[in-house]
């Protein structure tokens, strides 16, 4: 059974339909890639799942429980955590405190005291490779580190499902490969992952399945190789030169 399932999801902003009648599902412990051109509705879909927006129509079920229309903090506590495309650290807090806040209030928050949360934060930060920067203020970090902090905050919440919204944008090749490695390790810990990305190098390497949005509609959903060779996907997103370059 799917861990997350959405049926007939529609999200309208006044006259604009950002997500149009989309069905999706994610299987337990899967890494699902969500791709599509700018403005396709990817981040809107993530925001609908995370509770920032209630869907205009349709229902989302997480582990068999309806979550559409719930507040973001409720969804976070149920076991879905997310990162933001434009990172949102707590700039005035230290890196350690940033991650600790995730541990205090996320899915594992109820049973975690403030002290235990700090300890948990140190573990998670070591896991994402920020062990040597835990006492810096979040606004002193460079871009790759900020992306890692964003992931650490989400992971400290002890989620069953994480939504990674462009955590690799702005990274160079070696940083991308490190991030891919990290995402694999996260999955090995039993976490299910939805990843929005434009970096095809990452999508190809890490995803089990790809889901493509275009103008708010689903145009493809299937195994990586199949979707990347799909004519519609190439036309709408990848471009013809992509095929020439990669073959």
């Amino acid at each position, binding site marked *: 059974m799917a861990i997350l399932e959405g049926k007939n999801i529609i999200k309208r902003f006044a006259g604009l339909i950002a997500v149009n009648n989309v069905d999706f599902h994610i299987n337990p412990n899967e890494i699902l890639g969500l791709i599509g051109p700018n403005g396709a509705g990817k981040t809107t879909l993530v925001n609908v799942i995370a509770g920032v927006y209630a869907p205009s129509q349709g229902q989302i079920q997480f582990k068999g429980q309806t979550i559409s229309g719930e507040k973001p903090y409720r969804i976070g506590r149920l076991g879905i955590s997310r990162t933001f495309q434009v990172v949102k650290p*707590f*700039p*005035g807090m230290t890196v350690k405190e940033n991650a600790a*806040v995730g541990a205090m209030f996320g899915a594992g928050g109820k049973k975690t005291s403030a002290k235990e*949360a700090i300890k948990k934060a140190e573990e998670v930060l070591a896991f994402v490779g920020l062990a040597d920067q835990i006492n810096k203020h979040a606004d002193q970090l460079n871009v790759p580190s900020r992306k890692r902090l964003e992931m650490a905050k989400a992971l400290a919440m002890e989620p069953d499902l994480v939504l990674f919204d462009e955590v690799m944008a702005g990274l160079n090749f070696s940083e991308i490969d490190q991030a891919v490695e990290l995402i694999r390790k996260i999955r090995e810990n039993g976490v299910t992952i939805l990843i929005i990305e434009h970096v095809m190098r990452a999508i190809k390497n890490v995803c089990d399945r790809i889901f493509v949005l275009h103008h708010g509609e689903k145009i493809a959903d299937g195994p990586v190789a199949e979707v990347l060779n799909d004519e519609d996907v190439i036309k709408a997103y990848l471009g013809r030169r992509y095929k020439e370059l990669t073959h």
Partner: protein
Amino acid sequence: MGNKALNNFLICGLIILIVSFFPLVSNNFSIRFGTDILMFAVMASAWNIIGGYTGYASFGNVVFFGIGAYITAILMEKAGLHFGIAYLAAGGAAALFAVLIGLPVLRLRGHYFAIATLGVAEAMKALVQNLDITEGNAGIYLPMLDLPVRHQYYFFFYMMLATLVLTLLVTYLLLNAKLGYSFIAVREDEDAANSVGINTTLSKTFAFALSGFFTGLAGSIYAYQQAFIQPGPAFTVQTTVQMIVMAVFGGMGKLFGPLLGALCIEMISETLSNYFLVAHTLFFGTVVILAIVFTPKGMIDLITQHKFGIAYLLQNIREHRI
């Protein structure tokens, strides 16, 4: 508890002890002046909970002060209750009012929140001016404290001191608890706070209620001390401005910032008004502007970071693009 925390506790205990001896060796005027400083320290510290830590700049905190004062007056004068009961009820009523008003008003952010709270305080003043139970603009006389004059001064000083210690202690405990982290997370990025599982509405409302509670306690002591309360002085926006200026001057979002701010501002203001009877507000304004320009993080930052050089002041100007 670590060594550093223990040291800090000992230092605080010593300071409280020294301050406790202050009335015993001072004249009545000085005790009264000290009580005023303590009162503003309570109110600025209470403002710090919502404005400094949670990031919601309330421009209407005087409403809690006024409610605390009026609840005390009504309970003591009309219901004949003991001050102790009135004191606690004053804090409770102010906190309850903060919850009721906070639920709609805390949905607003930034300037909108500031303006809405300002409006709430003005509306409450108008209400109190027109209600029978508050006796309108005529005001209410409270029963006098039945003690020799010298002991009255002691009583109010020590009540304010105890309230200040309580305010700071609760704030300190909160800062090390989950709730305190949630306040700061809301200030730093409310959307991110919500997404990591913080019930931001609950956190903000709690911060506002705490802020209201302590301000209400200060209002209660003030009313008993004055033995007479009127809507104008009880709800004047000037009091809110003083709380904010003191908190900012001393250091917003720092435990002892507002206390230091209250001390400095009251001293400066008192000294200036001694030397310049008419123009002291002009000089006072200049001092505040200079302080904000050169030390936007507050006096407490200057002291705790040991940065007394000119370089620190210039760095602040660069960072804040003046």
